[in-house]
C-alpha cells in the first residue's frame, strides 16, 4: 500500500532539508531538487496506479474522517497528481537554467509549491484544502517576485491582493459551512448539505467559487494572471500554469461536484467559462509580449476547462480533465520555449524574435506544443477540446459553443501569427539552446505526441469521471 501523503511529505521533508544540504554543497541543490521531484513522480505514478483500482483514503493521524483529516485520492486525483509531479520534474530540469540568487530559497519554494499543489489535489478536507491553497499561493507570491525587479513585484502585488481576498472568501465559505454542519470533511459536507439553510448555502458556494476561481484563473478573477506570469522567472511561469492553475481548477471541481452538486447552477459556470475563454483569447490577441500572450492564452485554456466542468456531463468533464493534462504539458512547454526565446532574443517583444524557431531543437517541440494547444489532432490538446465541445452539444449549448469556437479562432489567429514570426527566415543569430532547455522541451513534446497518438491510457483513467461526478473521490 502506497501512501499518497508521501507526495506531500517528501517535498516538504526535502524543503526542510535543503538548507542543511546547502551548508554542505550549494551546487548540488538543483540536482537534489530534481531527484526529489523524480522520486515524487515515481510515487505519484504508484499512487495513481493504486487509485485506479479503488479510491485511496489515506487517513492522517489515525482518526476516522471526519474526525481526522483524510487524503482522498480517486483515479482522477491520482491522475492529476501524476501530471503535476511529472510537469514539476520536467520543469525542474529547466530550473537549472536559473542563475539568480538566492538559489536555495528558489529550490525550497519550488519544492513547497509542489507540495502545496499536491496537497490541494489530494486532500479530502475542506480546511486542509484551504491550507494547501495558502501554501500554494504563498509559494507563488514568493516565486512571482523572485526576479526582484519592478515587473516581478507588481505582478506579485496583484497576485497577493487578489489571492488574499480570494482566500478570505474561501475562509468565509468554510466558516459558513462549518457553522451549520460542524464538519470539514468534503464527503461529509456533501452528504449533509441538505441540512444547511439555502441562502447560507448559496453564500458559502459563491464564496468558495470565488476563492478557488482566483486560483483557477476564472474570469473576472484572473486579472492577476498576465502580470504575475510576465513578472515571474520563466520556469516559475511554467510551474504556475501547469501546477498551481491545475490544482486550483481541481479544487474548483471539488467544490462544484464533490461538495455542492448544484445541477442548475452549472450553466452559470459554463457562462463564466465562456467569458474566461473570450476575454483570455481576445486580450491575448492584442498582446505584443510573448509571455503575456501565453498568459492570456493560459486564461483562455483554463476557461475551456471551466466550461467543461460547467457543462457537467461525463463526456465534457472527461474533456476537461484531458484538457488539464494537455494544458499542463503544452503550456509548460510553451513557457519554457518562451523563456529560451526571451533569453536568446534579449527582449520580450514577439516582433523581435524572427526566425528563432528555425533551430529544430526549439522549433519542432514549439510547433508541437502550439498545435496541441490549438487543439489539433493527433496531439493531446485535441481530445480535451473536442470532448468538452461535444459535451456542450449533448447538453444543447449551441450558442455558447459557437461563441467559444469564435474565441478559439482568435486563439488560432494569434498563435499563427506567433508561428509566422518565429519561423520566418532571418539573418539574426541566436545562441544555441543548452541541454537544460531542449531536454524538457523534447520531453514535453514526446508526452504530447505519445498520448496524442495513443490516448487509450488517459481514457482508461477518464472512465472514472462518472463516479467523480456522482460525488465520489
Amino acid at each position: 500500500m502506497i501512501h499518497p501523503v508521501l507526495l506531500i511529505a517528501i517535498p516538504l521533508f526535502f524543503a526542510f532539508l535543503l538548507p542543511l544540504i546547502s551548508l554542505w554543497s550549494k551546487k548540488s541543490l538543483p540536482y537534489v531538487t530534481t531527484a526529489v521531484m523524480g522520486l515524487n513522480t515515481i510515487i505519484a505514478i504508484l499512487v495513481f496506479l493504486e487509485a485506479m483500482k479503488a479510491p485511496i483514503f489515506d487517513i492522517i493521524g489515525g482518526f476516522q474522517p471526519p474526525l481526522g483529516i483524510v487524503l482522498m485520492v480517486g483515479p482522477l486525483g491520482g491522475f492529476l497528481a501524476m501530471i503535476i509531479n511529472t510537469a514539476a520534474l520536467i520543469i525542474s530540469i529547466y530550473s537549472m537554467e536559473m542563475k539568480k540568487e538566492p538559489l536555495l530559497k528558489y529550490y525550497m519554494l519550488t519544492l513547497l509549491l509542489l507540495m502545496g499543489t499536491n496537497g490541494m489535489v489530494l486532500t479530502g478536507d475542506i480546511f486542509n484544502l484551504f491550507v494547501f491553497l495558502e501554501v500554494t499561493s504563498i509559494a507563488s507570491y514568493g516565486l512571482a517576485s523572485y526576479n526582484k525587479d519592478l515587473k516581478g513585484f507588481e505582478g506579485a502585488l496583484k497576485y497577493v491582493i487578489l489571492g488574499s481576498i480570494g482566500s478570505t472568501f474561501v475562509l468565509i465559505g468554510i466558516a459558513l459551512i462549518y457553522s451549520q454542519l460542524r464538519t470539514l470533511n468534503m464527503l461529509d459536507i456533501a452528504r449533509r448539505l441538505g441540512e444547511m439553510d439555502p441562502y447560507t448555502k448559496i453564500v458559502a458556494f459563491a464564496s468558495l467559487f470565488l476563492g478557488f476561481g482566483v486560483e483557477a484563473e476564472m474570469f473576472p478573477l484572473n486579472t492577476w494572471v498576465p502580470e504575475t506570469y510576465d513578472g515571474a522567472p520563466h520556469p516559475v511561469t511554467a510551474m504556475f500554469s501547469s501546477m498551481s492553475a491545475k490544482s486550483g481548477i481541481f479544487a474548483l471541481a471539488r467544490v462544484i461536484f464533490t461538495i455542492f452538486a448544484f445541477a442548475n447552477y452549472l450553466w452559470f459556470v459554463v457562462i463564466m467559462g465562456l467569458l474566461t475563454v473570450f476575454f483570455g483569447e481576445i486580450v491575448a490577441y492584442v498582446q505584443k509580449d510573448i509571455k503575456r500572450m501565453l498568459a492570456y492564452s493560459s486564461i483562455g485554456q483554463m476557461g475551456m476547462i471551466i466550461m467543461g466542468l460547467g457543462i457537467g456531463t461525463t463526456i465534457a468533464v472527461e474533456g476537461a480533465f484531458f484538457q488539464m493534462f494537455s494544458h499542463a504539458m503544452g503550456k509548460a512547454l510553451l513557457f519554457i520555449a518562451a523563456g529560451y526565446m526571451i533569453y536568446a532574443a534579449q527582449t520580450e517583444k514577439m516582433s523581435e524574435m524572427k526566425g528563432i524557431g528555425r533551430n529544430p531543437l526549439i522549433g519542432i517541440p514549439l510547433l508541437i506544443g502550439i498545435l496541441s494547444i490549438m487543439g489539433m489532432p493527433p496531439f493531446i490538446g485535441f481530445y480535451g477540446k473536442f470532448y468538452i465541445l461535444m459535451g456542450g452539444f449533448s447538453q444543447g449549448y449551441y450558442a455558447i459553443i459557437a461563441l467559444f469556437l469564435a474565441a478559439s479562432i482568435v486563439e488560432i489567429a494569434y498563435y499563427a501569427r506567433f508561428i509566422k514570426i518565429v519561423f520566418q527566415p532571418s539573418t539574426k543569430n541566436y545562441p544555441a539552446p543548452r541541454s537544460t532547455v531542449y531536454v524538457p522541451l523534447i520531453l514535453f513534446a514526446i508526452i504530447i505526441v505519445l498520448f496524442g497518438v495513443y490516448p487509450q491510457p488517459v481514457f482508461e483513467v477518464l472512465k472514472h469521471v462518472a463516479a467523480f461526478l456522482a460525488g465520489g473521490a
Partner: protein
Amino acid sequence: MEIWSAFGIFVLVPLIGALLSYLARKYAVYLGLIFALVPAIALYPFYGKEMSTVVNIGVKLNLAFDVTTWFFMLMLDTVALASMLFATSYVRKGEGGFSTLMLLGLAGANGVLMARDFLTLYIFWEMMSWSAYILVLRSSGEYARRYMLFAVLSAYLLIMGIGIYYYYTGSFLYSAASGIPLSGWAWILLFLILGFAVKMAVFPLHVWAPYAYRSEQPFVAFLSGGLSKLGTFGIFMAMYSIAGVAILQGFGTFRSISLFGYPFAVLGAFTAFIGTILAIFQDDLRKLLAYSSIGQLGYVMVGLGLGTPLAVGGALFHAFNHAFFKAILFLGAGAVIYRTGKYRISELGGLGYRMPFTFLFVLFAIFALAGIPITSGFISKWMLYEAAIEKKFVLIAPLMLIASVGAFLYCFRILYGVFLGQLDKEHENVKEAPAPMLAAMALLMLPLLIFAIFPGWILKWINEILTGANIGTLKYDTYAYYSSIGGADMLVFWITFMLLFMISMYLFTRKRKVTKVVDQYDNYLAGETPPYVQLHAAHNFYKPLRDTWAPLLRYSVDRAYEKFVKFFIEGFEEIKKMYTENPQDYAAYLGIAFLIFLLVGWWLL
C-alpha cells in the same frame, strides 16, 4: 485483417514514411516518393472491396473501405504521387520537412476517406489541415495565417455539425443517424456542408485559396488537386451517405430537387462565375490558377447541390478531372517557376519553345479545364450542364455556361502569357523541366485522355457510388453517355476528329514546303522596324474587360473580411482596457463577481 492492411497501407505507411523522411533528411524526397508510391499502387487490388473495422486507440476509430473511398483515394494518392515525383527535383535536397508534411497530409486525407465516424473524420481532417498549414507556412509565410484561420473555421463548422449530430444521436457513427428531426438535419447538414465547402473554397469562403496557393507548387498541386477533393467527399458523404436522399427530399422539393440542396447549387454556380471572373484579371500565375480552382470547384458544388444522378455523377467526375488537370497546371507552373524563378505572367512569355513538353502537358490540362471534348474535362462539364438544363434551372445553367466561357479567357492568358508570344532575352537559355517533373505531369495526363475515349470506365465506378448511395443510376456505355435531353458519343467524336484532322494534315502538308523558320522578332509591325524591344503583349492582358468590370471589382470579399477583422481587432483593444493593471480595480472586480455569483445563485436555487 484485410481492413488492417488497408488502414496500414493508406494511413500508416504514409505516417511511417513521414517519420522516416524526417529522420533521414538526406534521402527525404526519395523516401517521400517511395512512401507515396506504395498507397498509389496498392490502390488497384483494393478496387471493389468492402470492409470495415474499429481501431481502438482510446477513442474508437471506425474505419471502412468501399468504392467511394477507393474512388477518392484514386485521385488523392495519384496526385500525391505525382507531386512527390515532381518534388524530387523541385525541393531542395536534404530537406525533410516537405516530404514529412506531404505524407502526413496524405495520411490524414486517406484517413478522412476511410473514416466512418465523425471523431475519426475530424482527427484526420485536422491532421491534414495543419500539415498543409505548415507547408503553406514554409514558403508563403505571410499568408499562412489566412489559410490556417479558414482551415480552422472549416473544422469548427464541422464541429458544430458534428456536435448537433451528437446531440441527437449520442454517437459519432455515421450509421447512427436515425430519429433526427428535420430541423436537426437542416443544421447538421448546413454546418457540415459549410465546413467542407471551405476546403472547396466556395464563395464567400474562398479568400484563403489565392494566398495559400502561392506556396511550393508540388504541394499546391496536392492541395488544390487532392486535398480540396476532401471537401467534395465530405459534402457528398454528408448529404447522400449520412443523411441520404430521402431526408434531403423531406425538406421539400423544387422540380424534384431537394430544397435544401438547391441553395448550395446556386452558391456553387455563383462561385464558378466569381472565381472565373476573378481569375481572368490575375497576373500572378499561381493566383490565377487559384481562382480558377475556386471556379471549377463551384461546378462540383452545383452538382452536389442538385442531387440528381447526373448531377452528382457529374460532380464526382468533375472533381476527378479537376484533381488531375489542376495538379498538372500547378505542376506546370511549378516547372516554369523552377526554371525561371518568375511567376508573373507578364514577365514570362515564349517558354513554349524552350519547354515544349511542359507546354504540351499544360496545354492538355487547359483543354481539360476549358472542357474541350478531346479530354475528359468536357464530359463532366457536360453532365453538370445537362443536369441543370434538364431540370430547367434558368439561374444555375447560364452562370455555369458563362463561367466556362470565361475559363477560355484565363486559359488563353496562361497559354499566351507564359508559353507563347515573345521569349524574353533573359529566358533564352531556359531548359526543359527535369525528367521527374515531366514524368509527374505525364502521369497525371493519362487519365484525362483515357477517360475522354472510354468515359464508360469511370462512369461505371461513379455509377457504383451513386447506386450505393441510393441516388440513382447513370445512363452510359463504354463510349457514350446520355441525359434525358441529350447525349454524346465519344467514339464517333474521336473517329471523326481523327479523320478530319488527318484531312487537314494532308491539306496542310500535301506538298513538301520550303518553309523558312524566322526569328521571333521578324514579324509584321505595320511598317515600324523597332530595334529589340519586348513586345510581349501580356501585361494587363484583359485591360478593356477589366475597365468595364472595374465598378464591380471594387467590392471585394477579401477586403470585406479585412474590414471585418479590423473592426474586431479594434474591439479587442477596447476590451483589453478592462485589464487596467491596477490591483484595486481588480479587487473591485472580485467584489462585483462575488455579488453576481450570489445573485445568480439566489435566482437559480
